[in-house]
């Protein structure tokens, strides 16, 4: 990776995110044209008065509904992508993502229990968040990263996931009236996002992401294996545990407010590695930018394709992600970046 090419990839990723954000705030049902949207947004900056009359209802729709939703999509996309890339670095496997240790199943169980119990508002995300963390804590306890191999841990994660899924099915069976609501949650949605949805996951998102990013260089060194990494002064088991915890926190914060959105955590880091090489120093932050842009676009599609009805965003990411993934796999040189 030459310096020039490295910079170009950064520029591309930033441009992609900005374009996606612009697309997200302008496309869709609202009486405002792109110029007006721009004026309203600029008007929000302190000390700036862009002037021009805008219908107050359109303005409120943009600022209270559209904007938080677009930003939430960006946040969730960034978190899922960086968490996926972190997990892939820990397990040295491009096909794992942050749901691998049971966090999705745990979040699903938490949300299901909360919905069936009649909870509403922020209680559902809180329950999903707790369920995700509980599942991963169980998987870590069962297949402790410290002492055993990472494949043991993955198997423990699969087992925990299956258990939580079974528990969820059991809960649902006794409450078929909630089925539709639960499934809507499981398929993922950013509809109804407002500024509190954005603020609530932020602290966990920041802490989790910071922990993962801080280990970027050390994840690179782990490529030489356990023993050689130890001889270079690192504690591989400690690094893996911290990155798993940070990535789980970031992903759980995302899942809690958005439901289960697949594919982002696998497709985005994979695409980034194709363009920027495998070093986590580049892959982790670039995945955040590209993941944010990708999910903003996916959400824009989700709310416009069948407007005024909405597609579940999980359906959109899978529909976009699978062909993209196959295309990436087919065009990957053998022996190239994995």
């Amino acid at each position, binding site marked *: 990776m030459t310096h020039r090419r490295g910079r170009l990839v950064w520029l591309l990723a930033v441009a992609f995110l900005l374009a996606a954000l612009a697309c997200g705030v302008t496309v869709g049902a609202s009486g405002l044209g792109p110029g007006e949207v721009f004026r309203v947004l600029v008007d929000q900056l302190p000390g700036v008065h862009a002037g021009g009359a805008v219908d107050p209802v359109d303005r409120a729709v943009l600022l209270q509904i559209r904007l938080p939703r677009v930003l939430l999509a960006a946040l969730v996309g960034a978190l899922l992508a960086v968490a996926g890339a972190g997990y892939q670095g820990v397990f040295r496997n491009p096909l794992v993502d942050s749901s691998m240790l049971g966090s999705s199943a745990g979040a699903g169980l938490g949300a299901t229990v909360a919905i069936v119990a009649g909870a509403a508002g922020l209680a559902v995300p809180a329950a999903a968040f707790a369920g995700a963390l509980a599942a991963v804590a169980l998987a870590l306890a069962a297949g402790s990263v410290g002492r055993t191999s990472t494949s043991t841990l993955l198997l423990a994660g699969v087992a925990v996931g299956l258990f939580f899924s079974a528990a969820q099915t059991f809960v649902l069976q006794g409450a078929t009236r909630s089925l539709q609501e639960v499934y809507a949650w499981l398929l993922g949605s950013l509809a109804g996002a407002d500024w509190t949805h954005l603020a609530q996951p932020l602290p966990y998102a920041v802490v989790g992401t910071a922990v993962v990013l801080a280990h970027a*260089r050390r994840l690179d060194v782990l*490529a*030489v294996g356990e023993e*050689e990494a130890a001889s*270079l*002064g690192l504690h591989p088991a400690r690094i893996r545990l911290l990155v798993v915890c940070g990535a789980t926190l970031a992903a759980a914060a995302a899942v809690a407010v958005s439901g289960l959105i697949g594919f982002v955590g696998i497709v985005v880091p994979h695409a980034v590695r194709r363009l920027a*090489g495998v070093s986590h*120093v580049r892959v982790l932050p670039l995945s955040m930018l590209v993941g944010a842009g990708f999910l903003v676009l996916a959400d824009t599609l989700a709310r416009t394709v069948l407007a005024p009805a909405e597609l579940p965003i999980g359906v959109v990411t899978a529909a976009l992600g699978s062909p993209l993934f196959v295309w990436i796999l087919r065009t990957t040189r053998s*022996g190239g970046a*994995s």
Partner: protein
Amino acid sequence: MTLRAEGVRAALDGTEVLHGVDCQVPDGGWLAVIGPNGAGKSTLLRALAGLLPLAAGRIALDGEDPARMRRRERARRLAYVPQAPVMPAELTVEEYVLLGRTPYLGPLAAPGASDRAAAGEAMERLRLTGLTRRRLTTLSGGERQRAALARALAQRPRLLLLDEPTSALDVGHQQQVLGLVDELRADGGPAVVSTLHDLTTAGQYADRLVLMAAGEVAAEGPAEKVLTEQLIHRVYGARVEVARDSTGRPVVIPVRAP
């Protein structure tokens, strides 16, 4: 930098492989560990590197147990090159050699000018300068071995632990690489412990040899004392003749049974 091991016992997956090994290396010394396949040479090196918990005995690196030292601190003092280093497919030679600077980097810091200089110097010493941008996967076996050694030199250690550092090198590169290590060491550089299969070479470069057999020390001392026909026959089951080269060092010549 002195290294001393006393009564070292160590087990791998529950099987004891080292049954009480003693050895020592003085400051600036070179100890060669020789012995047949499976004798425990690699295991001893891992134990000396602090990478293997001991069942009994003690190892002291300037009085400190390497297994208990802070890892970063240990990695600045000793560098270890395993018999078969992992060569990550995606790395270039330069990126790989820079990994040797890990113990000097803060958690968030990128390698700086001094790190690049240390890596560059190591690559130059090992004549890898033409290959810096090549991927590890495209290197020949001998080039990889030199890259691994360059990474260890980039660590600027006071002790080099090398497991079969020349097994893939041709005779010219063998002499060049061992000569380079010897030069470094004579120049106030690191003390060296290396396993070597070639007994003649071991006798030429190391100032002391440890001959291991089945997890124990069968003989220890200078080359003239250890490289004898009887000892080699007893430990390796090999028929050899020991001659002298022009400098008087032993030359071990395998001979075919009549």
